């Protein structure tokens, strides 16, 4: 049996009286890409925030490689192999593209507290960062500031940052949102490449059905914060809940 990398058990968060994520229990084995779907406000991004630690859970646990990480901070979870790319671009605006990516690799290699060496002298970081920038086709813009990049290029950098972390669990939050038709395939190919590595698991929040169809091994559906469906794509896509989520029918009536 394949190893379970990530697991949430009855994971819940309440904001006042509103239950944003409601007792979601789910296992994510290595070598699988799970698409998380659901209508706007269903709690997909909140579920991500609970897993990566930006929001503290009200109840339930998050387990990474068998270890309970529910009480750990964001940085600590990242260090243990939980990598996250953000839905809204969330970069270091006044630093260059290369510098953004180098910061990620530097973090992974625990070199952040190097006080007396010159940052530029760490050529191995620069080399690795340049390699990743080539893969996402940003190498020609590497010396530009992030603020000078187009939206699509910022999205590419967002994905590059996640690849730079080399995590066990990749969490993509609508990676191709707002990208042009000719840019998106670059990112989707990269995700397919990551998926092919059987020691990793990929979580993908996505709205585009064609993307889900080509990439997903499994789909989970969130509805009003609760897990509404979980299974192979063909099965879930045909189910009533997904019809509801995408067609707007009321679930209660089905």
């Amino acid at each position, binding site marked *: 049996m394949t190893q379970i990398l990530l697991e949430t058990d009855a994971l819940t968060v309440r904001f006042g009286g509103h239950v944003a994520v409601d007792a979601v229990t789910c296992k994510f084995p290595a070598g699988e890409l799970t698409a998380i779907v659901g209508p706007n406000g269903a709690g997909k991004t909140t579920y991500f925030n609970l897993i*990566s630690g*930006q929001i503290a859970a009200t109840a339930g646990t998050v387990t990474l490689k068998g270890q309970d990480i529910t009480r750990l*901070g*964001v*940085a*600590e979870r*990242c*260090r243990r192999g939980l990598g*996250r790319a*953000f839905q809204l671009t*969330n*970069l*270091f*605006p*006044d*630093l260059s593209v290369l*510098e953004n990516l*180098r*910061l*990620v690799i*530097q*973090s*992974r290699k625990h*070199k*952040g*507290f*190097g*006080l*007396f*060496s*010159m*940052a*530029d002298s*760490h050529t191995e970081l620069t080399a690795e960062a340049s390699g990743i920038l080539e893969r996402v086709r940003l190498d020609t813009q590497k010396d530009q500031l992030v603020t000078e990049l187009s939206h699509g290029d910022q999205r590419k950098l967002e994905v590059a*940052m996640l690849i730079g*972390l080399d995590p066990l669990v990749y969490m993509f939050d609508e990676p191709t949102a707002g990208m042009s038709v000719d840019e998106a395939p670059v990112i989707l190919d990269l995700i397919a490449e990551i998926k092919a590595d059987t020691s990793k698991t990929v979580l993908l929040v996505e709205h585009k059905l064609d993307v889900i169809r080509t990439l997903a091994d499994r789909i989970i559906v969130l509805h009003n914060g609760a897990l509404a469906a979980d299974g192979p794509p063909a099965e879930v896509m045909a189910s009533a809940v997904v019809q509801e989520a995408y067609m707007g029918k009321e679930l209660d009536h089905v």
Partner: protein
Amino acid sequence: MIVRLISGDTPRSPILTALLLLILICLAGAPFLFEGVRALDTAARICIFILLVAGYDLLLGYTGIVSFAHTMFFGMGAYGVALASTHMGRGFDALLVGTVLGALAAIVLALLIGLFSLRVRAIFFAMITLAVASAVAVLVSQFSDITGGEDGLTYKIPRVLTSANRMGEVMGVKFTGKILNYYLIFFSSLALFLLLLRIVNSPFGRVLQAIRENDFRAEAIGYRVVWYRTAATCLSAATAALAGSLFAIWLRYVGPDTTLSFEIMLDILLMVVIGGMGTMYGAVLGAVLFVLAQTYLQNLMGAASHATEGLPLISELVDPDRWLMWLGILFILSVYFFPTGIVGRLRRQGTT
């Protein structure tokens, strides 16, 4: 070689390079280039304030943390030297012990303040530093048995570093211990400034900039932001304390007004902002301009007031007592016209 010494952080503007070189030459040759005790005193103050302001820039400009406790750390270094020299008697051992203990105390206090308040929010840190700095200033003036209270402490430093030590003539100038003392301060400040320049260009410095830009994301890619902010606070406190020790060695006197006062804190803020935040070189220009203005603006205005004696309003306006008003106007104008400071302005000119 030189590029390595300044950690690859070149001024990136011909005018800025020229200005920095001019400042370096003037400070390095101050005892020989300028006459008089006052000029040397001004040069020493400039060296010390460059260091003090550069340390503050590490916090404000690079990490994006506002602290009001920088003069407190400055004072800790100064009082360290003063207390050690008072209790151990004059000697280099007293200077060394005072400097080391002052810096250690500053680091420990910065660590405590940082860990308690930087967890929450950066603005909370600003308030805590303000409170702690005020409390320390009150304590120093209350415990007059130890600190000399408002009168401060006067003490002796090794004879070698005073004007009583005559070492003959160099280039037509009497080379005294005072000049030796000046060079102690000059080279210490220079070395520490270059060290700071290295730190802001190190992997650690990059993390600080990342935190300034987007602390949320810095945390998300695995940096424990609290620890980095606290470390920056400790480093900044240590440099302030060292600057304070140098100041104490130079003045042979410490008191609340010369080291702990809130006015100096404001001066430091102005120097960073006028020079240009997050550039290190801004600290140099800011400190030079400000200390020169503080020392000579009054003289200049006195002369102007004298020359315009016949004119009613103008001679009033340029009266030496109004120097703070003019400094204020200069500050407003510089913030208005150079929001990124002098260095930011010069660099932008260099690229366009």
